[in-house]
């Protein structure tokens, strides 16, 4: 057989395979009719009737049950885990790497990868059932640094959100010039939870990021946006232990929200907040922090600059944020720590805090991972 014949054979077989795959996709979407199926949530707490054929994540979203998801249903963020008791079908290869042996045993699945073809029974944490979708108006955009902005949203419908300081929302990004995908991205709330009808977020530009590019380049004051929430279990505990806050960049958001809460509740816990930045150009909200120091007599803000050589006039703390923690913290054994930032920063902080005598069960964090 000559080369041409081999090439033709390969093309024919490849073409047939591609055509069959395409046919299956089209059939699944347009021809197959699964009819009406029932999604039972939490043993009868909610019973959803819908047409089969979509992913479980889409099915739940269509019924206003919002499961966190940051990858647009591609099975890459692993946020949308849901316990499926019955009717999920076989595990897909995409899901395997994201599920621990314990989760597999319990029937946990990535809801974006589970197709709803028959009746299905799921268990969803009760706090997720309280998540709502909000229409909002951009009331103010404040430039905090060259790559960080604060967005203040006025909630239109529903007009208010009950959230616990430390929680986050998912910000919707529609299709726009340069982006054909609708996506949600998670951002911690930075506002004062006592201020009704308002949500503030701190967003750092990720070059090429679909959501941050949209908000930095296309969203202005007066524009309408969409978000859903609240989500997350990062929050202050209710005790009198001294607090060590550690954050960097947009990790400022949930800590600022917690500080508002401490002011509102006249919380007298001793608290020290280490904030790491590269240069003074990367520092922001210094006035807000001063105001917190004035209102909370036992609170101290410690900005730490890694590059004093590029920060003329800087006389404050220098080095890595963890080095400043080592220099200043003397009461770790009795304290609690709240961390927000990149996985690297959090891992390094945990190591330092444990070295200073803080036990792992008293270190709480929100990783950007």
């Amino acid at each position: 057989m000559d080369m041409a014949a081999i090439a033709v054979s390969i093309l024919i077989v490849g073409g047939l395979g591609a055509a069959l795959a395409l046919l299956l996709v089209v059939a699944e979407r347009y021809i197959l009719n699964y009819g009406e199926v029932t999604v039972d949530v939490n043993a009868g707490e909610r019973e959803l009737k819908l047409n089969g054929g979509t992913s479980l994540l889409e099915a739940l979203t269509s019924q206003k049950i919002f499961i966190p998801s940051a990858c647009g249903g591609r099975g890459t963020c692993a946020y949308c885990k849901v316990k499926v008791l019955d009717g999920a079908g076989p595990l897909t290869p995409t899901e395997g790497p994201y599920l621990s042996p314990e989760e597999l045993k319990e029937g946990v699945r990535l809801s974006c990868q589970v197709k709803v073809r028959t009746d299905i029974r799921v268990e969803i944490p009760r706090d997720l059932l309280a998540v709502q979708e909000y229409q909002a108006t951009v009331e103010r955009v404040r430039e905090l640094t060259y790559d960080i902005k604060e967005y203040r949203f006025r909630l239109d419908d529903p007009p208010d959100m009950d959230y616990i300081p430390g929680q986050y929302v998912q910000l919707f990004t529609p299709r726009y010039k340069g982006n054909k995908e609708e996506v949600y991205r998670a951002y911690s709330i930075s506002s004062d939870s006592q201020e009704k009808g308002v949500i503030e977020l701190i967003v750092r530009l990720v070059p090429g990021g679909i959501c941050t590019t949209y908000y930095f380049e296309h969203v202005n004051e007066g524009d309408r946006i969409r978000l859903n929430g609240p989500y997350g279990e990062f929050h202050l505990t209710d005790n009198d232990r001294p607090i060590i806050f550690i954050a960097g960049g947009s990790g400022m958001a949930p800590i600022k929200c917690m500080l508002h809460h401490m002011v509102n509740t006249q919380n007298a816990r001793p608290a020290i907040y280490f904030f790491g930045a590269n240069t003074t150009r990367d520092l922001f909200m210094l006035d807000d922090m001063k105001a917190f120091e004035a209102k909370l007599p036992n609170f101290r803000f410690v900005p730490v600059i890694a590059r004093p050589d590029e920060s003329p006039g800087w006389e404050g703390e220098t080095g890595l944020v963890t080095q400043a923690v080592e220099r200043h913290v003397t009461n770790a054994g009795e304290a609690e720590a709240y961390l927000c930032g990149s996985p690297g920063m959090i891992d390094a902080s945990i190591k330092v805090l444990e070295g200073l005598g803080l036990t792992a069960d008293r270190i709480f964090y929100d990783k950007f991972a």
Partner: protein
Amino acid sequence: MKRSEDQLRLEQILRSDQIVSGGFIGDDPRMVEEIIEQDLATLEHLGRTKEEIALRMAEITEKGKAGLGTYAIIDDRLEAMVEESRGSLPCPFPDKANAQKTVTVARDRHTHEMLRWSDLSIHLIGKHAFFQGTGSRYRLDPRRLVEMIFE
């Protein structure tokens, strides 16, 4: 040049905004195969392989993480800052790989000349010899990259 369905589909994904804003090719009029071929020729001329480059980039990223979001010293000439965001990005090539949303900014300590890459860039170069098209936010010119990270 005759192109298979797979090649056409790949080019469509790379030119789209499906994974990153602005896509992976930008305003580059060349086909993906041409971009890869020309960049590989440059590498050959420079006496470097895609694997060597990816390895060195990954090493710089790893060392840069020690700066906890600020610049960390890599060697006598380089420093690097690593910024991590929530989530991961899928590889646009059909290999099911995923990369954390991590961006490394490598900077010459003396001239302050900078280059930026993501974890996905490292994978695209090491596995697919794809340095991205001109106009893409994450295009890395092989000559400039080699000069920056090796010399």
